[in-house]
């Protein structure tokens, strides 16, 4: 922040939360940003995910990034104005439904404490039941994070996109990148809407990012596309003021202010990159439904009114790729493996730092794209 940075032409590819947040921070810092999206903003995983804004249950090396993101979430109004009301902080609770879950949870809280993190705390069943009087059966305790919550994903993504535009970025939707090649000191991006020149390129293309990196001359990255799946029910009186999960399971359960329950978590529908959509396979949600009815028997009679999925890119170690590529002027931010929504604001900031040669707030070492090269 000491020297004035030169104004560079930056192309951000991918209008998901990472790309929109990156474009927002870069434009805010005076860069000349073009955000290219092949469909429309938030079309895939970013716009249609469960909207969980959680620090709970993160891989330890992701926690500093997640905590940094939470700082931005709580002051979201400063970043995206008008859309910040889409974030609903409450509390996140991951309960144990058996002895195994109980042991798993206690060990988790303990190990985090030893690593110096105190945001996850253990709650006994009685405390859980006083917070959630509508719970049907007893639990074996659970992990609580106060202040975690949920957001309306597409509105947050829209918010970052609009903020980027307000700061001077150009948004180009329905624009598919066909090719990407070095051009002198910079890049030439050929797209379905013409050719763009850039000094640097930020690759936030989600499930399509590895193919894009390959075109840019990067080593192969082991990304696989899947489509996490969700279901929403009809409206019921409010009984659940928190976001819930179950230890040892992939359930995610919340109740929106409309009274609708959103049930999902971890289940992967088939992703069809060519057809640009995920095939919803409802029966795969059956075990999540059973867990939801175990927690709240009343949910059994609600009607599922819609199921959907969004295509997301997964890495083998379930950690994202955030860092500079082998090629000069290329920065990657993808592979969030279905838990990147909460990280988004901090990732956007970190990507902006990488592009501008600044030291990011938190270490990105664990997310280095090169970590797969040695493994191979």
């Amino acid at each position, binding site marked *: 922040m000491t020297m004035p940075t030169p104004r560079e032409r930056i192309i951000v590819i991918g209008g998901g939360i990472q790309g929109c947040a990156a474009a927002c921070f870069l434009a805010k810092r005076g860069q000349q940003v073009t955000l290219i999206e092949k*469909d*429309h903003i*938030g*079309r895939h995983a970013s*716009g249609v995910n469960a909207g969980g804004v959680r620090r709970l249950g993160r891989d330890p090396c992701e926690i500093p990034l997640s905590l940094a993101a939470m700082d931005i979430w709580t002051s979201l109004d400063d970043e995206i104005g008008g859309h910040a009301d889409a974030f609903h902080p409450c509390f996140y609770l991951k309960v144990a439904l058996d002895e195994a879950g109980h042991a798993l949870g206690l060990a988790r809280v303990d190990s985090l404490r030893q690593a110096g993190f105190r945001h996850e705390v253990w709650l006994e069943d009685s405390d859980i039941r006083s917070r959630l009087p509508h719970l049907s059966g007893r639990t074996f305790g659970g992990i609580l994070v106060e202040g975690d919550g949920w957001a309306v994903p*597409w*509105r947050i993504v*829209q918010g970052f996109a609009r903020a980027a535009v307000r700061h001077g970025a150009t948004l180009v*939707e*329905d624009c598919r990148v066909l090719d990407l090649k070095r051009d002198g000191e910079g890049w030439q991006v050929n797209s379905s809407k013409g050719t763009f020149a850039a000094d640097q390129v930020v690759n936030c293309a989600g499930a399509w990012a590895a193919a894009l990196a390959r075109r840019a001359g990067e080593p192969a990255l082991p990304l696989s596309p899947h489509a996490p799946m969700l279901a929403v*029910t*009809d409206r019921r009186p409010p009984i659940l003021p928190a976001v819930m999960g179950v230890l040892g399971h992939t359930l995610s359960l919340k109740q929106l202010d409309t009274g609708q*329950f959103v*049930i999902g978590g971890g289940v992967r529908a088939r992703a069809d990159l060519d*057809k640009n*959509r995920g*095939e*919803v*396979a*409802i*029966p795969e*949600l*059956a*075990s999540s*439904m*059973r867990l*939801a*009815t175990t927690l709240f028997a009343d*949910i*059994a*009679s*609600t*009607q*599922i*009114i*819609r*199921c*959907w999925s969004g295509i997301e890119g997964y890495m083998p170690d379930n950690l994202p790729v955030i860092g500079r590529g082998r090629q000069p002027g290329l920065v990657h931010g993808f592979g969030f493996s279905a838990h990147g929504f909460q990280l988004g604001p901090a990732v956007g900031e970190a990507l902006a730092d990488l592009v501008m040669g600044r030291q990011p707030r938190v270490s990105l070492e664990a997310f280095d794209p090169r970590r797969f090269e040695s493994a191979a």
Partner: protein
Amino acid sequence: MTAGSHYDLVIIGAGPAGMAAGIEASRGGLRVLILDDQPAPGGQVYRHISQNAVRREAVPYLGGDYWSGQALADAFAASSAELWSESRVWQITGDRQVFLSRHGAAQSVSAGAILIATGAMERPMPVRGWTLPGVMSVGAAQTMLKTAGSGADGAVFAGSGPLFYLTIWQYLQAGFAVRAVIDTAPAKMTLAQYWLALPALLQPGLLLKGLRWRAAIRRKTDYFVQATSVAITGEEQVTGLSFTDAGGKRQTIPAEHLFIHQGVVPNVSLTMASDLAHRWCSRQLCWHPRTDLFGESSVAGIFVAGDGMGIAGAAAAVSSGRLAARRIIARARGIALPMAPVWRLLKWRQAAIRPFLDSLFRPPDEWRVPQDDKAIVCRCEALTKADVAAAIALGVSGPNQLKGYCRAGMGRCQGRMCSLTIQKMIHDHGGQPEDKVGHLRIRPPIRPLTVGELAALANDDANA
């Protein structure tokens, strides 16, 4: 998850197309299952036919076309096709698994081939006041007549289309008084329509029947034609209807019961949710699944028959059901299917009157998009035309992006009631052709499915 039983052919919908296919395929030696959401087979057109047949004298007003379905229903009952009534199919997958709810639990069956014969639904009619108590669709009025013999004395009918006239005629035959009939079909027939009328002469019986209905209606009701600027009045309950008549005079008709109708469109919920390719039919102003001559869709092994592939009426539905069944039998047996051109000709012959009817009863724009800003467009989310228009003005690339902007189409009807209206509004705003605007993505479950029913699938798994 445990795999359900396997059938050579699973048919969804026991209307004329489904029953005909079931009869044909079981005769051909296939193991056939028909899934139908009603208590008894018949579909919409032959609804309740077996129950009505035993008291035929009590319900003479249903007419000869209706009773012509009885032979089909009898043949179906006598066939070896298995029927599961009150079964709600909520998803089929590309690998031909059929998921359904029945007796309060979800289950699945697998199929060698699937035939979707889910018929037609009434085109939604979003005019101001269409959601008021006392306003019903003409199809709903006819359903009450068929199932319970009940009707409303002194009702007013507004709209157009073959079903509109048939139902009014049935109402009159049943002895109910009809206060007024307001036909909204546009003014005069054009020259093109006269040309289209030529093949319709191959079906003189149908033409004469239409003229007979019209004459009866003219005789027994206050009959208005070429009505425009129709507005439904009332605050808590419908109180009447106002419109501009053919002479340009504003008319007001009081009504406690108002039945409205603007034709029928294929019910594409299941075909769209199953990811079959569709094409926009500019003649019928609705989406049709893309199929080959035999009704096979863009997904191999999934067929469509009947009005669900394009509105052509009950007789053509029977032919298309049989044709699909023959193709499925031939494929299962590994034999060639002769006579295809004959079938095609027959199908065309049975629907010869369609282009004429489609043109005559083409819904005017004012019934496709409300004129009044306060008219409800999306019933589930209670969004008015103004609400949806404001979201469209933000600049959307299509109906699916619009969902994110204003929730239109995100309610429990999955856009069945607003999809065509939204599409037209986006078309009117941006000018791109309607087929390019596209339709709402329909996501399963397309029929009601409770969390508990779906949870039962996991329990089965655990016990397996």
